């Protein structure tokens, strides 16, 4: 016989009510109440809240092994993008470019010519993903960049910069932790998806390139207080510097479009957004009396942004060593770095089980059109030679990382053949999911806790049909109603009722 009778007496009920009221009062008293921005940034609660399954690791010790004795500053003209612009101003038409030197200038020119012809043919054929409106979107996404400067000069901005000198006050002073929270708040307000920080020490200083990719200008240190640039050199002050690593999300659905111009639009948008965010961060740092050292030319900085993203806790390395994966944003996220002299509390690398998962999963490798992603079971310190040019040295890669090495020469070919990018690996990745279905949080929590189910989860992802969408649905993109910029900027918000 079930008991439906309540045994709670009136006295007990009133007592329980009193206890509950006291409990709520204590919680309320302990909750932070902020009166102004100074109190917000001084509060521990103003920090970056992450899911429970994201664990922090020791500094300079990410889940991908790094041999800091081997890591040395790279001559970034040797990356495949090195010295990219030819006399016609186009990307990769310069015979001195590294990709040209490895694959041959005539070969590269033919790839570019084929690409141009392909796009013309596809638009004329009204090919899904390459219709006139798709190419117009891609063109629009790359049409409005803000000025990109090594040292911010407010190029084209009619209003004066309100620096401490302007007001006649001393520069901003705060603890590194307070400064980090303050810069995060400012950067996110200006459009950054998330921000992490690093200290430039004897190890991480080796990540700063010694030559600039676009011009070949040497990047050198001088005993000065402020960085400066001339056409011949980029100069850094030989003093304590800090890195600001910025994540800019991209349109996940755009990347699920595969090799299309909608995907291209999604990809190039991060650079357009970054050009603006970078200028804003630099102006903010100027405004409090410090300096932000940015990208002299759009697209090309003075540090490897993905390395920063991994070392400073945005993301983990993936099976494709060209891509890193964020616990919150997945694969479809861009990373950028600027340097500053504002003291910042560093953020450690993270472990969410992502790189371990990539040891088992080969979904990106199976999907890659050029088959340039490794199928190996274990990562390696050894950098393989280019598959199609085995006599050429892999000068474009820096030794000292135990990773799955992608053949970037083939990747670049595919990248160029289909307009301005492929990135099928990023679109198809198991971690390129949205947040509406509860299953994703359960899977991420499981992946972080144990590697036991990794193989099953990889197969389940394929079975459930996640990844690149079929061709017949490509043009459906135009009928959807996605958020501004194509991504959910509330993902890593934890206050104001916006957080997930």
């Amino acid at each position, binding site marked *: 016989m*079930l008991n*439906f009778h309540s045994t709670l007496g009136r006295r007990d009920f009133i007592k329980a009510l009193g206890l509950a009221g006291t409990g709520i009062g204590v919680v309320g008293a302990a909750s932070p109440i902020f009166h102004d921005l100074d109190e917000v940034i001084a509060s521990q609660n103003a920090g970056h809240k992450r899911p429970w399954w994201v664990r922090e690791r020791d500094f300079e010790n990410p889940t991908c092994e790094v041999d800091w004795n081997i890591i040395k500053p790279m001559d970034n003209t040797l990356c495949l993008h090195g010295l990219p612009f030819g006399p016609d101003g186009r990307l990769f038409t310069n015979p001195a470019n590294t990709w040209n030197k490895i694959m041959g200038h005539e070969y590269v020119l033919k790839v570019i010519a084929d690409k141009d012809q392909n796009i013309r043919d596809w638009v004329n054929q009204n090919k899904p993903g390459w219709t006139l409106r798709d190419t117009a979107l891609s063109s629009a996404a790359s049409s409005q960049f803000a000025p990109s400067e090594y040292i911010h000069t407010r190029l084209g901005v009619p209003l004066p910069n309100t620096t401490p000198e302007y007001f006649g006050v001393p520069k901003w002073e705060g603890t590194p932790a307070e400064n980090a929270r303050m810069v995060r708040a400012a950067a996110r307000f200006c459009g950054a998806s998330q921000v992490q920080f690093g200290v430039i020490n004897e190890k991480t200083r080796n990540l700063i390139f010694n030559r600039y990719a676009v011009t070949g200008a040497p990047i050198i240190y001088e005993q000065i207080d402020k960085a400066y640039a001339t056409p011949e050199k980029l100069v850094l002050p030989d003093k304590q510097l800090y890195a600001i690593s910025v994540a800019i999300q991209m349109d996940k*659905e755009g990347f699920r479009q595969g090799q299309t111009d909608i995907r291209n639009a999604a990809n190039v948008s991060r650079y357009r957004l970054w050009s603006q965010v970078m200028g804003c961060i630099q102006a903010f740092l100027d405004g409090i009396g410090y300096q932000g050292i940015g990208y002299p030319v759009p697209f090309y900085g003075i540090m490897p942004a993905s390395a920063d993203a991994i070392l400073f806790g945005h993301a983990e390395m993936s099976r494709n060593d060209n891509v890193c994966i964020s616990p919150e944003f997945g694969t479809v996220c861009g990373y950028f770095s600027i340097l500053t002299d504002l003291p910042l509390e560093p953020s450690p690398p993270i472990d969410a089980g992502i790189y371990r998962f990539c040891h088992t999963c080969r979904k990106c490798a199976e999907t890659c059109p050029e088959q340039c992603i490794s199928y190996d079971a274990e990562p390696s310190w050894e950098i393989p030679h280019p598959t199609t040019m085995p006599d050429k040295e892999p000068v474009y890669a820096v030794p000292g990382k135990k990773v799955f090495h992608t053949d970037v020469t083939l990747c670049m070919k595919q990248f160029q053949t289909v307009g301005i990018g492929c990135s099928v690996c990023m679109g198809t990745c198991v971690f390129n*999911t*949205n947040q*509406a*279905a*509860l*299953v994703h949080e359960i899977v991420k929590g499981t992946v972080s806790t144990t590697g036991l189910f990794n193989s099953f989860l990889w197969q389940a992802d394929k*079975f*459930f*049909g*996640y990844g690149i*969408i079929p061709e017949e649905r490509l043009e*459906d993109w135009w009928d*959807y109603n996605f958020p501004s910029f194509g991504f959910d900027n509330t993902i890593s918000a934890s206050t104001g009722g916006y957080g997930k």
Partner: protein
Amino acid sequence: MWFMIGILVGALILELLWLMKRNNFNLTWYEWLIGAIGLLMLLFTIQNYFGSLAEVEPKAASMFLLVTGLPSLILLALVWQLAVRRAKKA
């Protein structure tokens, strides 16, 4: 959505308890267990079905109906049949 589902599930459980009282029968512990698992799987299916549709993942949505939705209905039907047959025997 969870608020509405909570109200609906609460109403269904109340209805079940009321029916049990009116007809004077009980469920065994394992029937409660199977029923609870079936109900949780059904809720999981509903959330992921609509979540997947919202994510523009129609195949995933359908797969949830098949992989977790169907077993959840089988479990709930099993509890129902176990209870009904036991009641008939009594």
